[in-house]
């Protein structure tokens, strides 16, 4: 029965790919996707953006391999991770408007489940820094409840799972230095320029 083994291999790949594409929509419609993600182009490169039922949970810069981000979401949140761009339409629209200079605050719900404890407090304080202004590591540490923990605040900001929307780019050194940035300092400068913050 050797002929059985070889027949149907070529077209089956294409037909299976089409069926799988329809499956993505169907799974999202049925509410079976715990984490939906999409790749969103932006002026700072392709962003990988992910949402849970609660809200936006992750934005990854091009400095991170998309596959690693998907893997991380699978391990930390749920293995029911699927690419489902329709679930990210709202986020994509707000990001587009932000990069076009037509949006100064994000309204999509945010899911902070990738953060804990002091880190979450630092990021919540950071989320309140308005568009166009800047703050310091010491200041967000103080607002998070420990004004001496500015180094820990720096680490917390470095692990921000939702950059841009939780605007860690608005936090600088007390002396005025830019500090660090997960997406690279060029991106930090770009975002601050976009907001005319410096």
């Amino acid at each position, binding site marked *: *029965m050797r*002929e*059985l*083994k*070889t*027949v*149907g*291999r*070529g*077209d*089956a*790949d294409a*037909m*299976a*790919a089409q*069926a*799988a594409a*329809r*499956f993505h929509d*169907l*799974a999202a419609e*049925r509410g*079976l*996707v715990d984490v939906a993600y999409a790749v969103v182009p932006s002026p700072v490169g392709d962003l990988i953006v992910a949402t849970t039922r609660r809200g936006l949970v992750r934005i990854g810069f091009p400095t991170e391999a998309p596959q690693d981000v*998907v*893997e991380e*979401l*699978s*391990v930390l949140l*749920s*293995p*029911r*991770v*699927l*690419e489902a761009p329709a679930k990210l339409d709202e986020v994509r629209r707000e990001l587009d408007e932000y990069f076009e200079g037509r949006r100064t605050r994000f309204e999509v719900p945010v899911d902070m489940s990738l953060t804990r404890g002091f880190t979450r407090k630092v990021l919540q304080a950071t989320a309140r820094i308005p568009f166009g202004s800047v703050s310091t590591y010491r200041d967000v540490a103080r607002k998070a409840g420990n004004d001496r923990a500015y180094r820990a605040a720096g680490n917390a900001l470095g692990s921000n799972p939702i950059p841009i929307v939780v605007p860690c780019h608005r936090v600088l050194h007390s002396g005025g230095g830019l500090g660090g940035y997960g997406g690279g300092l060029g991106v930090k400068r770009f975002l601050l320029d976009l907001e005319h913050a410096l």
Partner: protein
Amino acid sequence: MITLPPFEAFLEEHRTPVYRLLHAMVGPQAAEDCFQETFLSALRAYPRLPRDANHRAWVMRIATNKAFDHLRAAKRRAVPVAEVPEQPVADPELDGEPELWRAVRSLPPLQRAAVVQRYVFDLTYAEVGSALGCSEEAARANAYEGRRKLRKAMADA
């Protein structure tokens, strides 16, 4: 630590074998529906799948069950028609030999499933048995009987 792959990767890895199994079992038209049902079921149960389970065998078993469900339902729905259409409806076939696939689908479901899993996917008889929910001996017997009928059908053609 071994962890479950993201479902996106699971789908990517298993979609083609699942599609080929279903195509062989239920034909091109119903394969699409059975494919969706298979992966919806898999997605529902996925977080509870043991990490060290054989993922391929697991999803093939789901697909086999969906194919059997479909074949049972099709049998129930079948009603005699007064006139048989003269021209057969054109079936989009996968590349390869359409006569052979038609012969495969004329086998009784268990023989069909056993033949496809043994000779298309190279599963062992123990694995075929576990996918079909029968013993290794029964899997062997069904594959043997199916292959004998196929040989005969192809020789007659």
